[in-house]
């Protein structure tokens, strides 16, 4: 008999607004560009993590979303081999790809940037989250036009029931040209969750309901 699997809280960031379970948690004027918004979010979170400012926009968005989510969950310990990460988006690392392309497009001012190049892979967001939270479990980055609840429900369930993981950070995180949206949730097993009326059973239809907020 398998443990029951739950979706704990979910955090969404879009249009300079952070919501946790659709309740606004932090907001900045919509006219403000992402770099300034995310810096305000960083300060609001009370983060002290200088690596943050070396990250590209996609990674900053991912890291901040996880931070808001974990705060809302009373900062559970998700370190170790038993936590996995599954992220999806539609634009891959295109925003940073374009930024990198700029560093090589002018042959008379040709200075390819290694610090930009390293972020031209979407799974670097996962890497940054793993480094910050010391997560050494399985992880994977899918690229998809839209969030596929049926497949992702299967994949996450497999990770928890057959690959031995206890928690999964499941999220959508997209960034391109100052347009951005992220939505992360924490999937946990019932032994890991205190009795809490806020938990949602991990089913395809509930996953659909959570991610319809995208």
């Amino acid at each position, binding site marked *: 008999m398998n443990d029951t699997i739950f979706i704990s809280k979910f955090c969404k960031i879009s249009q300079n607004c952070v919501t946790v379970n659709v309740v606004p948690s932090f907001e900045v004027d919509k006219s403000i560009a992402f770099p300034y918004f995310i810096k305000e979010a960083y300060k609001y979170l009370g983060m002290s993590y*200088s690596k943050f400012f070396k990250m590209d926009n996609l990674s900053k968005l991912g890291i901040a979303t996880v931070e808001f989510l974990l705060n809302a969950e009373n900062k559970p310990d998700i370190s170790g081999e038993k936590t996995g990460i599954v992220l999806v988006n539609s634009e891959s690392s295109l925003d940073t790809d374009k930024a990198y392309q700029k560093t090589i497009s002018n042959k008379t001012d040709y200075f390819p940037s290694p610090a930009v190049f390293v972020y031209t892979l979407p799974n670097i967001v996962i890497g940054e989250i793993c480094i910050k939270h010391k997560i050494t479990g399985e992880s994977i980055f899918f690229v998809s036009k839209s969030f596929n609840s049926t497949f992702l429900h299967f994949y996450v369930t497999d990770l928890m029931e057959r690959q031995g993981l206890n928690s999964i950070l499941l999220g959508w995180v997209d960034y391109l040209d100052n347009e951005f949206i992220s939505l992360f949730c924490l999937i946990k097993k019932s032994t890991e969750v205190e009795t809490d009326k806020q938990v949602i059973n991990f089913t395809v239809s509930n996953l659909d309901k959570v991610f319809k907020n995208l």
Partner: protein
Amino acid sequence: MEELIENLKIEIIKALNLEEVSPSDIDAEAPLFLEGLGLDSIDALELIVLLEKKYNFKIPTAEEGKKVLYSVKTMAEAILASKKA
């Protein structure tokens, strides 16, 4: 030399996105790696690009690179030495 060092500090902060660091926080003689600013391997590569792009100084070998990138002062010295050549 002093002007170059101050200029370098500003450029380093910009190139490495050292958001929470101001020029006065950087000790020109302190090591840049392991201690001091605690820069990493990617930062080292970006500094190599910075030296080429803004100061027209190309690091000849990896060994030379370690010496040049030791501190802001050694970077400034290398730039000045190359200008004399």
